[in-house]
């Protein structure tokens, strides 16, 4: 008896499952609201599939052996190390710069603010290669030359960080400004009536509440830096074992016709980017 009832239930489920597309089509015909969301979901699904297809195609094009042999090359190992080091330094420097600038933009009105905001956005809209060229020329000037004689930037690891920083920080500033815009100034005001200075109120009240934003700003700077190629190439060069970072490696491997090596390094970058994305998400959730 029980098994019969069970079977009938199973059948009715199957029938329901088979009929589902039909019901769905009917609903689409009748309900304009459903049609609207269906079309929007279709567009989203198409784009998501496109990204996944790119990654999967790249992944299946190479074998684990290719990836392994890429990892065993000393030059590539050095480039991995240098990429992780410079990206982390850039993310830290970007955050330290973006917090005060973002705070100023969110809290104060001042003469020429629109101009300052436009200038801060220049690194975002300028072609990256041009930024590298501008950096190179800046360090050819008398003042730039002096700075270069104290801390050598051109064609050094410092240059890699500076080239990454110029672009990473612009994104970090945008993120921090948005974060401070969302946080009311009122709690800071109260903290001041309770004895804090403006800086003290920022430190004790607003910064702890801006944790999520700071994580986001640092991660966006890190991720941008990982992929930065043009300015690094122009300003810091592509010397193996010296200023070669992962995007440079991909380019160098491609230019000598080693497609497998280039794919191996690319997959590695995808992997790092994913790890950072997930780690930052998790850190952000905890705030």
């Amino acid at each position, binding site marked *: 008896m029980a098994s019969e009832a069970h079977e009938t239930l199973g059948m009715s489920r199957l029938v329901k499952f088979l009929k589902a597309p039909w019901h769905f089509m009917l609903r689409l015909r009748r309900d304009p609201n459903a049609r609207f969301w269906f079309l929007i979901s279709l567009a989203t699904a198409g784009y998501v599939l496109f990204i996944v297809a790119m990654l999967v195609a790249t992944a299946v094009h190479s074998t684990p052996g290719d990836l392994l042999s890429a990892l065993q090359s000393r030059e590539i190992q050095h480039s991995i190390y240098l990429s992780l080091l410079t990206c982390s330094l850039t993310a830290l420097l970007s955050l330290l710069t973006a917090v005060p600038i973002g705070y100023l933009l969110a809290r104060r009105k001042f003469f020429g603010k629109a101009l300052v905001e436009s200038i801060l956005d220049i690194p975002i809209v300028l072609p990256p290669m041009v930024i590298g060229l501008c950096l190179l020329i800046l360090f050819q000037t008398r003042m730039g030359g002096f700075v270069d004689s104290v801390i050598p930037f051109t064609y050094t690891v410092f240059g890699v960080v500076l080239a990454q920083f110029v672009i990473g920080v612009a994104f970090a500033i945008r993120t921090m400004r948005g974060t401070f815009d969302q946080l009311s100034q009122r709690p800071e*005001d109260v903290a001041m*009536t*309770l*004895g804090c200075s403006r800086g*003290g109120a920022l430190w004790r*009240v607003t910064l702890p509440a801006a944790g999520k934003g700071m994580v986001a700003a640092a991660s966006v700077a890190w991720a941008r830096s990982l992929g930065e190629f043009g300015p690094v190439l122009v300003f810091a060069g592509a010397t193996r074992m010296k200023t070669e970072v992962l995007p440079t490696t991909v380019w160098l491997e491609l230019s000598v016709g080693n497609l497998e090596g280039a794919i191996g390094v690319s997959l590695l970058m995808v992997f790092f980017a994913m790890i950072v994305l997930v780690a930052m998400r998790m850190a952000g959730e905890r705030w």
Partner: protein
Amino acid sequence: MIKLENVSWKVDQFALAGVNCSIPEGKYAVLMGATGCGKTTVLEIICGLRQPDGGTVLVADVDVTRMLPGERQIGYVPQDGALFPTMTVAEQIGFGLQVRREGKERIVEVVSRLAEDLGVAHLLERTIHGLSGGERQRVALGRALAIEPRVLLLDEPISALDEDMRDDMMALLKRVQVKHAITVLHVTHSSQEAEQLADCVLRMEDGSIINRELQG
């Protein structure tokens, strides 16, 4: 006592011109006026968050016009409480004492006494998420009272509360004022609050405080 002498302030189209008023020591004053007429600005000038263009602000006979907000010994409760987003209720109430580097034991003692008084003792370890409007106002009040202020400035402390919470809150405010023997300036647009609470009513119109009625 709170006294404003010829206080003026202007930004863009909005101006306060020659604001004069005086609230006697230990009285409960209610400042009324239409929305956007500058009531909050007056509170911010008194507690030092805005610098007036001209005039003098006196608190307990001391000219505080050029003092920093933290030196004025004023308790400020802005609209909606403006609680600190990441702190527990206990940390909020003890914040002013912690900034003043008071000892741990004293902070704990003051926090628990105030929390008991204001009916938020059971919330001390909670963060502010999920607190009701009335609880938020009580915590904000405790935070302001912890530094033993000479005057208390309240910006619409009741208007955001549910109907049935309002009477409780009004009774609490009056009780706190009497117990701490403190001068209170309470901003509102509700004449019911004024009737129930005020020793004196101030009215704000056209950028100045034009009329003052003393009751009782």
